């Protein structure tokens, strides 16, 4: 069986690193892994998505509608946007941070204000955390990604050690400790 985690957010939020850490963990578990990334134009503040898929044998690097086991959303609105990819019974891990997209800034569209309730109203298990504050507590706002991985690890029943090892092998040496701390804060909040 192939499991799928989608990591969605706004270009520049560090979704790529999160997907690489998670992918590393799954590879070390001896599983087949595929990760699909976004580079280029969409990275500039647009809606971005990476897919991490793992199992005995993975074919497609991207997920289909209604197939993701978990969506880790780095921003509230993005959880709503990518909802159609969640499978029935799938979980959402959501950063409560709100980043207005340009059509909201220019007044063309409105930012929906009840996303969390709306998702829960559909019977979806949503874990909402203020990852930005936790990341800042860990030492840098940039660590939102590892905070959310901590939440994901707790929700999925993965051990901390596997992620420590992955962080040590994917993050630049001077940021390892801060990322481990951020991961722990997320794990404890998850």
């Amino acid at each position, binding site marked *: 069986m192939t499991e799928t985690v989608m990591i969605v957010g706004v270009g520049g939020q560090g979704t790529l690193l999160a997907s690489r850490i998670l992918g590393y963990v799954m590879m070390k578990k001896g599983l087949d892994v595929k990760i699909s990334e976004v580079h*280029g*134009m969409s990275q500039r503040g647009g809606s971005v998505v990476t897919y991490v898929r793992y199992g005995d044998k993975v074919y*497609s690097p991207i997920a289909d509608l209604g197939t993701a086991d978990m969506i880790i959303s780095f921003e509230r609105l993005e959880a709503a946007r990518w909802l159609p990819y969640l499978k029935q019974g799938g979980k959402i891990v959501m950063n409560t941070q709100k980043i207005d997209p340009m059509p909201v800034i220019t007044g063309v569209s409105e930012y929906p204000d009840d996303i969390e309730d709306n998702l829960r109203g559909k019977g979806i298990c949503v874990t909402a955390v203020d990852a930005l504050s936790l990341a800042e507590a860990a030492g840098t706002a940039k660590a939102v990604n590892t905070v959310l991985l901590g939440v994901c690890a707790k929700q999925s029943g993965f051990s901390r050690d596997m992620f420590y090892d992955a962080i040590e092998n994917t993050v630049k040496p001077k940021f390892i400790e801060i990322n481990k701390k951020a991961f722990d804060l997320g794990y404890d909040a998850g």
Partner: protein
Amino acid sequence: MRKLMLGNEAIAEGIYESGCKIVSSYPGTPSTEITEYAAKYDEVYTEWAPNEKVAVEVAVGASIGGARAFSAMKHVGLNVAADPLFTSAYTGVNGGLVIAVADDPGMHSSQNEQDSRHYAIAAKIPMLEPADSGECLDMTKKAFELSEKFDTPVLLRLTTRISHSQSIVETGSKIEYVQKPYKKNAEKFVMVPANARSRHAFVEDRMERFAEFSETCEFNFIEDNKKPVGVICSGICYQYAKEALGDSVSYLKLGIINPLPIQLIHDFAAKCEQVYVIEELDPVIETWCRKIGVDVKGKECFTLLGEYSSSMIKEVLTGEKASYCDYDASVPVRPPVLCPGCPHRGMFYVFKKLGLMVNGDIGCYALGIAPPLASIDTTVCMGYSVSGIHGFDMATDKKVKSVAILGDSTFIHSGVTGLINIAYNKGTSTVVILDNSITGMTGHQQNPTTGLTLKGDPTVAVDVESLCRSVGINRVTVVDPYDLEKVEEVLKEETAIDEPSVIIARRPCILLKTAKILPPKVIDPDKCKGCKACLKAGCPCISFKDKKAAIDPTLCVGCELCEKLCKFDAIGGNRQ
């Protein structure tokens, strides 16, 4: 070693393991990381060329010199490099020559959706197409061998999902490649008509021999699941099909996509009652199947547009639709935007204010199309802005005030030739070079104006002002794009004058380490009148809440553009 690798990274590993000596490329999504990863190997010389034509010519020269050589580009880059490509098919190689071309179905970061497989057919060059990172490595290595065995350049075709997906790769070790000696061989390398005629005959013969090879090559294989339905596919579509259909159909997976096999396809079709060809973009394999008399279903079931998915394939072949849960309300779109503090933003603000017709180009500044800046009139291809404005200005007799805009890297790529044309042919256009000291959109590559090589070593930098003057532009002005008053003044002056001019708007990309990041700005809610003047900057940091503007301190880099737009002095005081 077992490693998770991007497709592009695995190709770089293949370059290294093959003993390739020279890599010359021009950045372009989704191909850029191939050359960046190749640069991490000390044994491989890598460089950014000014454009793809130069890059391929460097690689051809290196091959003639006897080394294994490589060049990577995006699909539209191959248009630029098409000239050397077609004739290198005739000259063939000395050291192995491999050219990677990355298509972008769905146009994640491109201006068109062209299918590079047509180039392989038109230029009569063999083409391989990997379906995951492991194949990226294997096929790169094989491509060098085949290049030498068949005396031909070899094309490696990628798509975004192959280039930008990671999968597990088993890396090997570097071979000790013995460089070929250079021997003068005018019949082979001097393509004057008399020689080219005999080389053309060689090319036709070579493609016949390669076609025979593709019948039995391990990259083309049948997975016979003893099912009535068969699927012919290559690249990422193989993965989508396997995901969607599993063992419920048989597969013919093609790794060599030019020249395509004949007997293998007939043998496969004979095992099945119905054969589908599943290929993104154009019906290349389908057309071939029909030509050799194999009845297949293809584009009557599948679209010519965009990317495919496993759910799309499943629905076509089984009728089974994906079930999913929609969000109850409409979700505002989130298009990409110019970054907070981007030096281009002030320029677009003034272009719009002055109502200029803006000939755009390829780069981050294409994002100036989005509201509220919405100030680009055209985007066609690299360098178009400078050539296009000359035609536009002549057609409109300059009754429409216009500018051409392009970045530093794009100017060197193919803007400078357009500028020579303007000067030489007595044009009067105004060209604005948005010099942010880097190739931005593709993720910060050095270029001939930055003074650094791909590997970060100091080198000579093109003096853009002198270059513009030397081609015959007498009016060259440098402005700081953050200085809105000056920008407006210079633009008014240069677009009014009956002489060609260049305005260089110079400030480093805000994402560069050398850019100054200041503490975020704050809005004094008592002074803010809610006039929304600051929102006209189209900055993602500023939003409008409770009839007042607000700045997101986590995004703001303190660039002061909004401060300059506020008439009520409500924005200021960097937050510490």
